[in-house]
């Protein structure tokens, strides 16, 4: 790379200081819950791992595993083709989405206090506008990430928080999503819970509005993130490529954020 070029400036920041790389990804392991559907519907496979060999009689030189899981397992990328509203859009699957869309700016709104007080907390336009008054308007083609600290719940029961009326996890209000698309032109919505919609979103007027509207407008989802508390309200850059699965509706992703500033001790 040419000295003084844009990329060398970037790499200088990453290796020499000034740019932190933050891992926003859950560890994939068998006890990570996947989204629960009614039992008569199809179910997503959980993450499973079977050893191929571990320097033993099955393969003396190497350790490796066979994996299985659904496309929407752990920290993952939701492609527009995931939802019926996005099924006929162009460039809507993991193999056809233009790759530059996997790099985007992120705005992070801290809802951790509200989520702690109310598991069914819904993020509204009013809150976003108040946040913008402090941190500036959400730029076009930015992720909106909802920080709830929900990912700190390591226990699957607390994380899924289900009762007989479904899951109780925070998410966006159904009126917020069209506004985010039409007025702020976001690239997608990310959060810490198991899906981008609130746990009770199946009961909304438009069921699962974040999926319905975001994917219907060729936007993306990024659920089950962690470490959102390490990001600034504005200015982080997210790297979110899913696996290049033919006509994939999503994929587990190693989501990284680039953040300006020194590493905090």
């Amino acid at each position: 790379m040419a000295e003084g070029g844009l990329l060398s400036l970037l790499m200088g920041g990453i290796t020499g200081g000034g740019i932190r790389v933050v891992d926003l990804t859950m560890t994939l392991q068998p006890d990570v819950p996947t989204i629960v559907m009614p039992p008569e519907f199809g179910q997503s496979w959980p993450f499973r791992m079977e050893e191929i060999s571990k320097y033993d009689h099955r393969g003396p030189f190497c350790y490796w595993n066979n994996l299985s899981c659904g496309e929407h397992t752990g920290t993952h990328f939701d492609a527009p083709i995931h939802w019926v509203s996005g099924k006929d859009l162009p460039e809507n699957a993991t193999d056809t989405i233009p790759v530059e869309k996997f790099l985007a700016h992120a705005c992070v709104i801290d809802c951790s206090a509200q989520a702690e007080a109310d598991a069914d907390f819904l993020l509204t336009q009013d809150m976003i506008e108040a946040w913008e008054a402090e941190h500036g308007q959400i730029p076009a083609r930015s992720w909106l990430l909802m920080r709830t600290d929900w990912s700190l719940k390591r226990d699957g029961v607390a994380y899924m928080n289900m009762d007989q009326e479904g899951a109780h996890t925070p998410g966006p209000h159904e009126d917020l999503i069209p506004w985010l698309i039409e007025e702020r032109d976001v690239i997608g919505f990310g959060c810490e819970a198991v899906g981008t919609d609130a746990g009770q979103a199946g009961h909304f007027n438009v069921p699962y509005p974040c999926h319905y509207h975001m994917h219907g407008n060729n936007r993306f989802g990024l659920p089950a993130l962690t470490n959102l508390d390490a990001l600034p309200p504005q200015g982080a850059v997210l790297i979110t490529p899913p696996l290049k699965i033919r006509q994939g509706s999503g994929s587990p992703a190693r989501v990284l954020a680039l953040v300006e500033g020194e590493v905090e001790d």
Partner: protein
Amino acid sequence: MTTPLPPPRKKDPVARTRAPTQPPGNRSREAQGLTAMAAVGRFALQCCADCGQVQYPPRQICGQCLGDDLPWRDVDTSGTLLAETKLHHANDLFFRDRVPWRLGVVGMDAGPSVVAHLAEDCRQGDRVNLSLNLDRSGHAVMNARPETPGPNQEDDMQLRELSMDPKGRRVLIVNGKTALGLALARSFKAAGSREIFVGQAEPWKAAPAFEAIKALDGVTTFPLDVTDTDSVGELASVLGGKVEILVNNSYHLRPGGAVDRMDMNVSREEMDIHYFGLLRLAGTFGAAMRGRGADGAHGACAWVNVLSAYAQVNNPAFGTYSASQAAARSLAQCLRAEMAPGGIRVVNAYVGPLDDEWHQMVPPPKLGPDTVAARVIRALQQGHEDLAIGAVAEEIAERLAENPKEIEREIKL
């Protein structure tokens, strides 16, 4: 009166665990007929079709008239103890570990005189009842008990060698999230089990049965997902040296067959839970249990698989489910052979339709969980190996023995 069973004790950490041995296991092909009867809890002997003579031991030709048609028929279990003796020395390694051992000759009301293992409180001249039981080699032996049961009869040490009595033993129930899991936990507790361990998969999905299990005394719950190799291995590392009876009641029923409901995911889940689940349990718990087959009066003794009666003949309304059950049944036969050197009995309990959510569209008769649990306990106490539970399972067993093609063509929900 039978000597009461001593309470289970904590393991002496410096005492070597006795290696399992087997009683003599060679049998003729005819004598395996006794094994077939003992396996299902029947007391049947060959009866000559020509002269009616009851035969013992089993043979090819009638001892009285030389007729060669000797069908197996249930016969009277009563008899009189003609002679008794106590073995104080044996060269056979199995009995050497267990002397003194009581044996006797019983004159059966049905005709033959038989050599039988004797319960502690049988005396010469007593009226006795005979049973055919599988011994630790998996073969049938005659066993005599007083006609009128005495106190603590179930504690008889010779009988415990022939049964898999849950009393004083520690039990793992694999699936605590079904009504059957709850009924099993309650029944094992009532049968005097020392500790009951119960597994739970996907804890974020609530199950009323599991909540009720957690409220029982003497029950400890553990995370256990038979589709997760790590999960099964982790539990085996905790409980492998403790479990004396393992009950694999994994259950995942979805209606549908191969043509009209082509769904690889559902079919794979069924295989993962019923077949690979059993394989994971066998690979992690099997060796530890087998090594404790002779670990005193409360050693490891039984592995129970709750299987569908449709494991034996496919019900196309539950076609892929039946196929996964058939796979599990075949693996259970493999497990049976592999566990035999430890004297661990593999019990297959074939159940008809349960009265649960997934059998909503199935007409009665349907089985309640308490019925299944009670039959499992009884089979363990009496030493049975294969049991058909409920009218549907019993009918399937009968029709399969009679004409497998008929039931293949005619099976209905």
